[in-house]
């Protein structure tokens, strides 16, 4: 029984991080029709920056202050996104989508090496945050309190993004732009600015995902590429461009993964990809995707 609770918590922890990543990916696709292959690397960048800042500050400041530094990674990644969209992506919106995929793949390669140069091969962690919060007891087991915070951030992010997109002025403009870019500009919306903001928001979510994961799992080279493919699985199951889909997809992937690991570890990834492939074949636009 306790072990079940633990498994559920683990799944929710994982789902929180995946949701942040996949929702950003989906948001960017929904608004500008681009699959950002570098999304996982931006997540990794968020993790590295946060871990780096926290490692630096850990000796100097009080742990409570360290928590304020947690979003550092997310902010750096947002700043990167705000530069990337106008410089790299904007010239390509009119070109076939292969080119958009290729350019973000190029960005992935560059980012991977930049992280290799700056942080080298040694894993970097922000464990002081994890330690500061201690543990909670779940029956006879213990569970890091920090992970509960991550779950809370995940829930909060899901609600926040939902409210942002469906309940704010910017959200209405965002949805309008994603549905009909031409008409949006003919009504007086500065579509270019909406694009930068949407891309920045997507990057912020990826960076935040990396930032909140790094106190409990060290940042390592290749983490971005690994998580990218999982984020693909999530958005494919949920439907590209759909926020509800990102949430449901993240939950499905996390729980299935936890379940499969119990029974047949070797098939963990295979089962996830298989689900994604099956969904794509039966419902090409995913569970919540807009029909084409």
């Amino acid at each position: 029984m306790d072990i079940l609770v633990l498994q559920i918590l683990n799944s929710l922890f994982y789902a929180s991080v995946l949701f942040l990543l996949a929702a950003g990916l989906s948001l960017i696709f929904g608004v500008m029709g681009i699959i950002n292959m570098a999304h996982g690397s931006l997540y990794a960048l968020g993790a590295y920056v946060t871990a780096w800042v926290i490692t630096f500050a850990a000796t100097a400041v009080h742990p409570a202050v360290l928590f304020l530094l947690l979003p550092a990674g997310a902010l750096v990644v947002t700043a990167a996104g705000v530069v990337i969209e106008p410089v790299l992506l904007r010239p390509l919106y009119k070109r076939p989508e292969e080119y958009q995929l290729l350019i973000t793949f190029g960005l992935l390669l560059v980012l991977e090496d930049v992280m290799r140069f700056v942080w080298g091969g040694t894993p970097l962690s922000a464990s002081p945050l994890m330690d500061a919060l201690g543990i909670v007891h779940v029956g006879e087991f213990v569970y890091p309190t920090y992970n509960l915070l991550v779950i809370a951030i995940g829930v909060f992010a899901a609600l926040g993004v939902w409210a942002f997109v469906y309940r704010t002025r910017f959200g209405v403009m965002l949805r309008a732009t994603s549905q009909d870019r031409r008409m949006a500009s003919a009504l007086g919306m500065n579509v270019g600015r909406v694009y930068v903001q949407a891309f920045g928001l997507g990057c912020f979510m990826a960076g935040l995902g990396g930032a909140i994961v790094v106190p409990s799992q060290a940042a390592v080279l290749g983490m971005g590429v690994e998580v990218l493919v999982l984020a693909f699985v999530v958005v494919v199951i949920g439907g590209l461009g759909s926020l509800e889909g990102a949430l449901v997809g993240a939950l499905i992937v996390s729980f299935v993964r936890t379940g499969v690991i119990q029974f047949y570890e070797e098939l963990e990834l295979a089962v996830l990809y298989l689900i994604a492939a099956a969904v794509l074949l039966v419902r090409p636009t995913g569970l919540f995707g807009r029909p084409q």
Partner: protein
Amino acid sequence: MHDARVVAARILVLVPAGAWVLLAPAALSPYLLIIWCYALIFSIACLGLNLVFGTTGLLSLGHAAYFGAGAYAGAFLYRFADIHSFEVYFLVGILTSTLLAAGIGFLCVRATKIHFAILTLAFGQIFHSLFIDGAIFRLFGPLGWALYLVGEGSMYIPRLTILGIEFEPEEFIPAFYYVIVFAFCASVFLLWRINHSPFGKALRAIRDNQTRAVYIGIPVRQYRWYAFTISGVFLGLAGALYGQLDRQITPEQLDWLFSAELVLATVLGGTRDFIGPVLGAFVFIGLDEIAGRWAIGHNIMMGLLLMLVVFVFPRGLAGTLDLVPGIRKVGLLMKRKWL
């Protein structure tokens, strides 16, 4: 009828190229010969990929699976059936990859554009994860599992006998080189014929305007499937050669990053010209080698190169060279009908 210029152009291009290809084992150090072999193999893979990508207009991010299958199939055969013949290894590899491509392709061609890319990626990763997590090895009982634990999913492939001849270790690569050259020439010839057949024209029609292709009676999905399967043949062929050359095959060759490298090299060379993927593969392998040797950021270089190609040379190397008048002329003369 040939006019003199056609003959002259062919002599100008083919004689030096032929001489170089035949004499390479004597001219190159053993190390460089292996790199050159690898470039030839890689270009077969890129040419095969381009039948789906450039010609049919479908971006696949899962072609590594067929490349890897071409080597893994023979590797298992050697391990569990103790077969030492290169011919058997080779044919089993091609057959396996073809069947795999036919099966996966059948499902993938239901989608297009971004969904096709993701679907091929997902299937490719299924295959990758079966190897890297060991599920496939489990099927072969305790011995298979032990093999997985030792190699972490990679497999050793010995020097096999070629046409029944067992070569000494130092003789093996120069001899195997000619096998690769033969396979390369055969692949170029076959793919050229496919590209210039009515079927190839139909594929380009599908790429350029699917609606119109349907309208003029092309069975679009079926032809896409054929193209996918045929490209699986060449990927398997390249993979089998690679496995024997490197004497091992690892899950790295199954990963989507390898698929993406194939795409990258193809785009670098130019997807719209038949010879583009070959040029791209050569340059890609060359740059890869330089980057590896100087310990420069390998990925940064590839990433920046990709951006350069996308922004400045969208037609790739072949398309850009084609703008140089002299080269264009020779190229046109080369493209004339052979007989």
